[in-house]
């Protein structure tokens, strides 16, 4: 369905041109100093770099959570710069998924409800269809037996898997994940990465993953490395999934 929105297929999923971001008024921080980045449909891309180099800032701009100080962002052929806050909210709710490192879920809600939330907030109320879809995704991340658990009763890895189900419930074209495994042990990290990869393969959902860890970056088909607000290197196709053991 969503591929029909892109004519000819030569329009990239995301095109960032000379994107800049400065924070502060008196003490000015140049977090991004001119980023050029293109993401294709179905990309599986890692974003690495030392702490403070601007990874989260870039993710927030691409995720339409913040506005760049300069440059242009084009999502599926549409320049998002002039869009109103309402239109950006609309795009976030229909095309973008988020997975955060901390504070993953809303503690007042059960795992299933957390997954349902993005759809309920769009449609205005819960429906059987939403519930079924959320339950299917929860099953897909291996947590159908935890559907009615409060998020506070889940382990870190389980929470992150619920968060992934929540990000995918709206059928996004792009999921932005900010250090999704930053807080997890090795086993949970592997589970989470397996899930992200399988969603990428199965639905063609594009992923942009911020990570510190080489082991994760190595599982991505493309690794963009940032240093001090600029892209330092952009390596593609180093490892195709088929090459891995």
């Amino acid at each position, binding site marked *: 369905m969503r591929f029909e929105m892109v004519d000819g297929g030569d329009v990239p999923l995301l095109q960032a041109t000379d994107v800049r971001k400065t924070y502060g008024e008196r003490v000015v921080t140049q977090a991004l100093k001119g980023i050029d980045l293109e993401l294709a449909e179905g990309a599986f891309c890692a974003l690495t770099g030392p702490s403070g180099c601007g990874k*989260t800032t870039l993710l*927030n701009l691409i*995720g339409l*959570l*913040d506005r760049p100080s300069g440059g242009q962002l084009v999502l599926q052929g549409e320049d998002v710069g002039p869009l109103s*806050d*309402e239109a950006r*909210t*609309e795009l*976030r*709710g*229909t095309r973008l*998924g*988020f997975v*955060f*490192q*901390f*504070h993953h879920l*809303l*503690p*007042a*809600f059960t795992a299933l409800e957390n997954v349902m*939330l*993005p759809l*309920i*907030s*769009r*449609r*205005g*109320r*819960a429906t059987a269809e939403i519930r079924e879809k959320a339950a299917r995704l929860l099953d897909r991340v291996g947590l159908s037996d935890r559907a009615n658990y409060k998020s506070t009763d889940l382990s870190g890895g389980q929470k992150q898997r619920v968060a992934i189900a*929540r*990000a995918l419930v*709206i059928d996004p074209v792009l999921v932005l994940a*900010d*250090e999704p495994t930053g807080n997890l042990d090795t086993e949970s990290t592997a589970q989470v990465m397996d899930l992200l990869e399988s969603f990428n393969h199965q639905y063609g959902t594009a992923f942009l993953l911020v990570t510190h860890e080489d082991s994760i970056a190595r599982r991505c088909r493309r690794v963009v490395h940032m240093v001090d607000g600029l892209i330092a290197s952009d390596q593609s196709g180093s490892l195709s999934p088929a090459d891995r053991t």
Partner: protein
Amino acid sequence: MPFELWVALRYLRDQRFQTGLILCGTGVGVGVIVFLSALITGLQESIIERTLGSQAQVIVRPIEEIPRVHPMDGEVLAALTLERPPQRVRSIEGWRAIEDVVRRSPDVSGVAPTITGPAIALRGQGSIALSVRGIELESYRTIVDVESRLVEGRFDLAGFQVVVGTELARTLGTGLGGRVRIQAAGDRGGVYTISGIFDYSSQTLNESLVFVSLRGAQTLFGIAGGVSALEVTGGDIFEADAMAARIQDRTGLVAESWMEQNGDLLVGLRSQSMSSVMIQVFVILAVALGIASVLAVSVVQKAKEIGILRATGTRSRSVTRIFLIQGAILGGVGSLLGIALGAFLALFFANLARNPDGSATFPVALTPLLYGRSAAVAIAVGLLAAVLPARDASQMDPADAIRNG
């Protein structure tokens, strides 16, 4: 269930402690309002009822004799004062026609021709000042429910029968069937038999007011065929002023409402109402501040969650609504608690002290209107109190709120 209501309820349930505290606070506030309103309204109603229980809403009297100016020859004017003799009972000229006019006014529900005048009761050596009221029971009972005040005998005024107050009967040392000589000015008078004894719960009325037949009073005061007043009752007691003004316009007579006759009472009642309103306003203010501060704290506590909701596509107006709904729910549920508390307090208070006849010394007016009004005010206050926190929440920058760390 709508999304916003669902989230609002969850948040309130999730922060049980805060919710519980502010519900108690709102409940106490609304309780005070309900209790105070019930008490003051009850007291005022009973005072007014007591006043109007023995008095017409409007009394129409003959016009006062005023100085009349006669133009004289040339430039000289002479003013003449007609001093009416004291104690003279004057009749309304052509009162039957006027009664018809008054009765036909749409706001009038009852008219009674009466004669009221001074007299003295003689028994043995003693004499007691009286206010004699001549009535036709048929018409007078539409003005004042005199029969309900009867504690002994019958309300029978035929012939030389009289109905007196409890206090007068006691002072005269007599009772039902007793005889009393009533003497008016001009040496007119007669011996009357007591056919009934009333209790108006008023010392003054019980010891001085007596009822005789209209005809008897006409004889007693020497105004054959005349009446000294038309007593009028209408609908809303607080419209009596307007009704009096209309009657005065239409008849050219003096029409005085109970409100004019009880000016001091009304001033007292008004200032009582005013202080009650003041207290209520401050209580409402305290409730509003309480709800607002709880919600403001909640917005800060939930900043990251709001950020996540916004990031996952929740519209900012939905966030506004989530907090407005919380305010309304806190106000609404708090008002239910408060109505229960206020009603309980009011009933407790009403049962605390009772008159000898079993009625409450402090009557309370607990009405659905009071409950509805209290709930509406509390919900509105909750909504208003939530406006600023809700605006804060909806304007929060999601990128700031969810920034890692």
